[in-house]
């Protein structure tokens, strides 16, 4: 029985390794791209879900006033043909004519005004709040002309209007509301939803009435089916048996071997997500070794970031030295950085009064193996850890309650290409801020509210430099995503980690 058990796994491995597995032509032959995602979506309504997959679907089904080109980062006109800054707190939009929603409703100023005012009302609870809480209201100036009044100066306004803020049909939404939209979504986007099985499966069909002048282009693949398959091995089995044509977030070790087999296309792309270490610099949790800047600097020198990136993170990832992703606006790179130097780390620890190291709690919610590698690095300089690995919700609760003096986390900035989406989130005195440094808070405040790009850049650089100098938080590396898909599919990932199926084609 034992031999049989081993033999069967061995056989399975060999069959796959030798490429014995043949792939069905299911996807291309019926013009349907079968996609697998790993989690249940709480709702398909764009304003009531926060998962990345929700963002992906949002780009397929709805349009915004503007659209950020993923390659050039330019803001292109979509549902708005042009815009004008009337003053630093008011924007005027001219809207595109001749656009129809999936249910035939005509798109005009009423829809824009309705959507923006609906979102601005906190009682409606649109998520996440930071996407919608920066404007006061919208006014209709004409059938195709709208004015948006901001609450204060908000430099990231166009960034939000070209991505997460999409236009809803006023007649339909005022009747159906979020419950109705979640079961039967209606938008102006390149794909329309034909079937919703909440949390399980979503079916899409190419929208033939899509406006031809859209910067998103015209979709090529006729049908898309997105299914939730939580288990990664099952996703791979479906890919191998032809039931699924496209998967992402493949683990690097798996992706390497899939690529070696040659039966599927694998692509890697960097993302805006970065990993970081957070320290209880001000003693918010308790009096502990992390209060001392020398200890934090020691830890910065103790972690072999380069080694971990090469061996574990792999792909297009790289070490980052500023608490932001290099492409984000304001992410200054010319600041103090820390090299991998365990000897220096030990010296700093001795200086701080810990010649034999110390023990500290250490919290994480993902990438257990990266955490273990870091723990290994820390052990080498004398720091032992009491490691706790929690689910994200529990991790977030504990951190925000002030319960974690030392933790490893990541942040994807919701793909917003601006430092305000990450550094300000963690260091502006909010719930995740364990240092609450007045200087950093001041500089980030200037950067977040000024509309002059030069002023913003200087302020953010000052903040990032101080963060690095004092190691309030320690940036580790950028993340990457592996995609694996059928050889019939022509798909190109974008660095904002939002797959655009409307640009994919059959080969």
């Amino acid at each position: 029985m034992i031999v049989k058990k081993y033999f069967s796994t061995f056989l399975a491995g060999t069959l796959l390794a030798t490429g014995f597995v043949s792939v069905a032509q299911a996807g291309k032959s019926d013009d349907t791209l079968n996609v697998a995602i790993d989690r249940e979506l709480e709702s398909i309504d764009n304003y009531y879900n926060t998962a990345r997959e929700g963002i992906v679907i949002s780009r397929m089904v709805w349009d915004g006033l503007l659209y950020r080109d993923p390659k050039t980062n330019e803001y292109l006109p979509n549902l708005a043909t042009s815009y004008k800054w009337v003053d630093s707190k008011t924007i005027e939009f001219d809207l595109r004519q001749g656009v129809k929603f999936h249910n035939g409703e005509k798109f005009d100023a009423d829809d824009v005004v309705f959507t923006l005012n609906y979102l601005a009302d906190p009682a409606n609870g649109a998520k996440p709040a930071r996407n919608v809480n920066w404007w006061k209201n919208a006014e209709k100036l004409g059938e195709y002309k709208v004015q948006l009044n901001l609450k204060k100066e908000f430099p990231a306004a166009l960034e939000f209007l070209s991505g997460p803020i999409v236009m809803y049909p006023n007649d339909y939404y005022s009747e159906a509301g979020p419950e109705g939209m979640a079961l039967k979504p209606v938008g102006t986007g390149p794909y329309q939803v034909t079937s919703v099985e909440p949390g399980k499966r979503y079916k899409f069909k190419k929208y033939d009435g899509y406006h031809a002048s859209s910067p998103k282009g015209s979709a090529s693949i006729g049908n898309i089916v997105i299914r939730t398959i939580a288990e990664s091995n099952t996703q791979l089995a479906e890919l191998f048996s032809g039931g699924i044509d496209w998967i992402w977030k493949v683990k690097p070790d798996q992706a390497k071997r899939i690529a070696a087999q040659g039966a599927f296309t694998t692509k890697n792309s960097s993302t805006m997500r970065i990993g970081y270490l957070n320290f209880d610099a001000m003693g918010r949790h308790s009096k502990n070794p992390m209060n001392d800047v020398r200890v934090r600097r020691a830890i910065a020198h103790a972690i072999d970031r380069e080694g971990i990136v090469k061996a574990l993170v792999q792909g297009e990832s790289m070490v980052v030295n500023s608490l932001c992703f290099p492409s984000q606006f304001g992410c200054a790179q010319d600041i103090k950085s820390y090299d991998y130097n365990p000897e220096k780390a030990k010296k700093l620890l001795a200086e701080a009064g810990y010649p034999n190291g110390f023990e500290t709690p250490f919290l994480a919610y993902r990438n257990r193996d990266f955490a273990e590698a870091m723990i290994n690095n820390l052990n080498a300089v004398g720091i032992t850890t009491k490691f706790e690995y929690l689910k994200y919700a529990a991790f977030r609760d504990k951190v925000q309650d002030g319960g974690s003096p030392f933790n490893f986390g990541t942040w994807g900035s919701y793909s917003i290409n601006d430092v305000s989406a990450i550094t300000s989130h963690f260091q502006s005195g909010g719930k995740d801020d364990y240092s609450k440094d007045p200087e950093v808070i001041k500089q980030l405040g200037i950067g977040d509210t000024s509309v002059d790009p030069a002023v913003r850049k200087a302020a953010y650089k000052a903040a990032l430099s101080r963060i690095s100098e004092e190691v309030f938080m320690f940036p580790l590396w950028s993340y990457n995503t592996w995609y694996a898909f059928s050889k019939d599919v022509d798909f190109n990932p974008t660095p904002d980690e939002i797959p655009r199926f409307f640009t994919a084609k059959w080969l």
Partner: protein
Amino acid sequence: MLYYTLKRLGLAGLVALTVSFISFGLLYISSDPAIAMAGETASDADIEAIRQLYGFDRPILVQYFDWLQRAMSGDLGKSYYFRTDVSALIAERLSTTMTLGVSAITFAIVLSVPLGVAAAIRPNSVIDRIALFLSVMGQALPSFWFALMLIVFLSVTFRLLPTSGSDTWQHFIMPTIVLGYYAAPAIMRLTRTGMLEVLSTDYIRTARAKGLRPRVVLFKHALRNAVIPVVSLTAVQFGFMLGGSIVVETIFALHGAGFLAWESITRNDLPTVQGLILVFSLFYIVLTFFADLLNAWLDPRIRIN
């Protein structure tokens, strides 16, 4: 018989209440319901407002009875994650789990009872050894490994069955085998032990001595008595399977109540978890209750005790 039934019902209700209260307490201790409901981007003020609005600052006992009151009238609240009615959510997912559970227990019974009987008739024979070995395999084999191996062979390599999902009855074949195999060992051993004991009793020897045909002896007399503990065990195993279905439902992407339970626990979706626990424990209690009734009907001696 009536008194017995009422007594059992009362006890069952008490058990359900206790289980639901303990679970309620455990959930509240392990996560803050206000934060879970408010979501990740809420500010401290938002969370405080929700705490006041939904009464999360009241003593646990008060909150529990409030929930219980509403649950009695069928209102299990709204899921923190999906924002839909918990009762509707559970009802939708439960049909998949029930289908899986029933076919799995049927498979387990069809597999283990004949094997147990055969093993008991010829103790220490080859059949007996095989039966025992298979039962240990069933307990020591990780179910996710078994599930994925079945997928690799039957679905990927030989294209006989669909890999995952719940669209057709073929989709349920592999999950049934994996889940049923997990329940089979206990049923098999109990059948074997029960049959062994019964086969050596006086009245069986008497029946044989009377000259009754072996098959009649076997089914009419022996099995009927041996099956009593098996009935109870089957009910228990069915209850366990509802929990054990988490792994099977996750791997085969079956989106049933087991998968929902695990995901809801990790998402801190308290109303959904609370509702599921209530439904699961009620099922378990109803099952054991009917098993007890069945046993009492099969063996009058049990009723009198």
